[in-house]
């Protein structure tokens, strides 16, 4: 265990939600949700805009009132009736919500100040947190004079300073540029683990979700579609929506006979060996499981474009006009637009969903 982390008491509570529901003006924004978040776990809420991520986070925070009683517990204790002031949760907002009239250090120490902690203790605690997020040299700077990344870290330190039971982050990196975002998501992930704090982290960026979460909950229309470790979500998506939302997924629909899927679209004779009995099926595979082959169960497609990624290249190819697939192949191979490629997919890595009515 890291020596720096020893300095902090473990303070993460387990969170349980029991049929947690939220309705705004007769419109149910969060369907009954059961969640078990372990102490010290980092759960990422991932989903498209408007799916209810922020609402779920604000319910846990105590900024919104759930539809019924007894729906949220911290370490088994019902906190539904506690207002946010009493819930002892740390919050990091997308806009950071730092107090513009205070310095970096005053922002970080604010929670300790309103809790009536003595100045001496407050200052040493603030110093320690600033060191932890690498802002010692900026302690006395006005918050309006530091960079976006520094503000982000100030906001994190401010939330951690009160030793919260849980840390709640709503798209904390969304306001930063891509390079900084990538660096900070690694840093934040490490920091949260070092703290051992229970964290709920909202994002709509799947790469961020993969990098930070112990588990990811993929949401759609106020419902959790799947919850699990990043690898499980990626390799074994529970349904079409999750498969599409996390990573790139190729999708073929058709009838299977003698273990071969025949894609039903005009102008295509695409076939793929998938195994199993006769049925209608939706078959998905990721770009990286495509293999060049010339066998009978191969898909033939016309190359439209290639993008060089270093070790691999991504081919966009179409099996029929408008029906595109993406393939990751070794970049040493050469493909020209218009050329026909024949390929199949590793049967182990093929994911099949029931065809919905």
């Amino acid at each position, binding site marked *: 265990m890291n020596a720096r982390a020893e300095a902090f008491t473990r303070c993460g509570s387990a969170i349980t939600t029991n049929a947690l529901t939220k309705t705004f003006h007769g419109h149910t924004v969060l369907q009954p949700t059961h969640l078990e978040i372990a102490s010290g776990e980092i759960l990422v809420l991932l989903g498209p805009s408007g799916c209810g991520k922020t609402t779920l986070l604000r319910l846990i*925070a105590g*900024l919104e009132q759930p539809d019924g009683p007894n729906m949220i517990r911290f370490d088994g204790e019902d906190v539904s009736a506690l*207002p*946010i*002031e009493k819930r*002892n*949760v*740390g*919050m990091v*907002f997308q*806009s950071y*919500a*730092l*107090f*513009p*009239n*205070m*310095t970096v250090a*005053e922002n970080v120490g*604010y*929670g300790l100040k*309103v*809790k009536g902690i003595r100045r001496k203790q407050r200052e040493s605690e603030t110093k320690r947190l600033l060191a932890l997020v690498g802002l010692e040299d900026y302690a006395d700077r*006005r918050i309006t004079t530091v960079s976006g990344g520094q503000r982000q870290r100030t906001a994190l330190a*401010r*939330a951690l300073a*009160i030793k919260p039971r849980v840390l709640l982050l709503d798209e904390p990196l969304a306001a930063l540029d891509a390079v900084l975002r990538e660096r900070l998501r690694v840093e934040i992930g490490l920091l949260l683990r070092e703290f051992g704090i229970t964290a709920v982290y909202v994002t709509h960026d799947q790469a961020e979700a993969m990098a930070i979460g112990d588990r990811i909950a993929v949401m759609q229309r106020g419902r959790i579609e799947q919850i699990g470790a990043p690898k499980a979500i990626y390799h074994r998506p529970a349904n079409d929506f999750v498969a599409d939302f996390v990573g790139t997924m190729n999708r073929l629909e058709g009838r299977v006979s003698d273990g071969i899927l025949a894609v039903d679209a005009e102008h295509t004779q695409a076939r793929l060996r998938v195994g199993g009995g006769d049925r209608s099926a939706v078959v998905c595979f990721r770009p990286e499981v495509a293999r060049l082959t010339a066998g009978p169960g191969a898909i033939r497609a016309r190359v439209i474009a290639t993008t060089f990624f270093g070790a691999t290249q991504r081919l966009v190819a179409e099996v029929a006009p408008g029906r595109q697939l993406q393939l990751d192949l070794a970049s040493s191979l050469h493909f020209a637009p218009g050329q026909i490629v024949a390929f199949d997919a590793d049967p182990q890595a093929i994911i099949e969903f029931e065809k919905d009515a």
Partner: protein
Amino acid sequence: MRSRSFDVLLILPAAIFTLAFLILPLARLTVEAGTGPSGFAGFFAILTEARYRNSLLVTLALSIVTTLATLALATIAAQTLAHRKFPGRGLLLSLMTFPLAFPGVVVGFMIILFGGRLGLVNSLSMAAFGTRAIFAYSLFGLFLGYVYFSVPRVLLTLLAAAEKLDPSLVEAARSLGAGPLAIQRDVVLPALFPAMYTGGALCFATAMGAFGTAFTLATSIDVVPMLIYTEFTLATNAGMAASISIALGAITWAALALARSRAMRDTKGG
């Protein structure tokens, strides 16, 4: 690159305006003030002569109390109206800003209808307790009139500022355990401060120079603008009227400058 002569051209209208309506009349007023019986010492008459000094003190006190009361009312109202939707919000806002349309004289009449001999409060009081309750012509009536006159202007300034306040600032403070008082002190009031300064300055200057309301109500109180009026028309002492005018302007300006420098220091000290 813009030419210098173009810049000069841009400030020309404002310069002409300032010269024609401020500096020239002021110079004339200053010369006029020197012609009074006590010469240029007349400038200090407002401080040295007991009657004028009392009038100045009353006006200052009235203006300060009016400003504080207006700011308190408007700050509370602005926070209630910003970020909140409730039935009747629009109606409430238009009722609160309705007095914008009234000149000071009309505000004076309204105070008389409210607190005069035949006013609402007196009728009720006579009916209920058999005691008289007349305050329209007192300092209190003047104070009510000034507040009524100023609240809409200050409210609109503060409402704009309150609506710009990021609600997540308040939520962040709450999550850190701050109660309502700490949130006002550390988050809301600092954010509203520039607007409170602007609104307060406007209110103070208006109260110092208010004439219409004073003319209808201040039958027994000599606020400075009334003093100037009586010196000018009744005593036909134009010199004294001019020197008091200049002194009033200077004192108002100095008070605002003082408040401003304090305000700057306070926000910097954070």
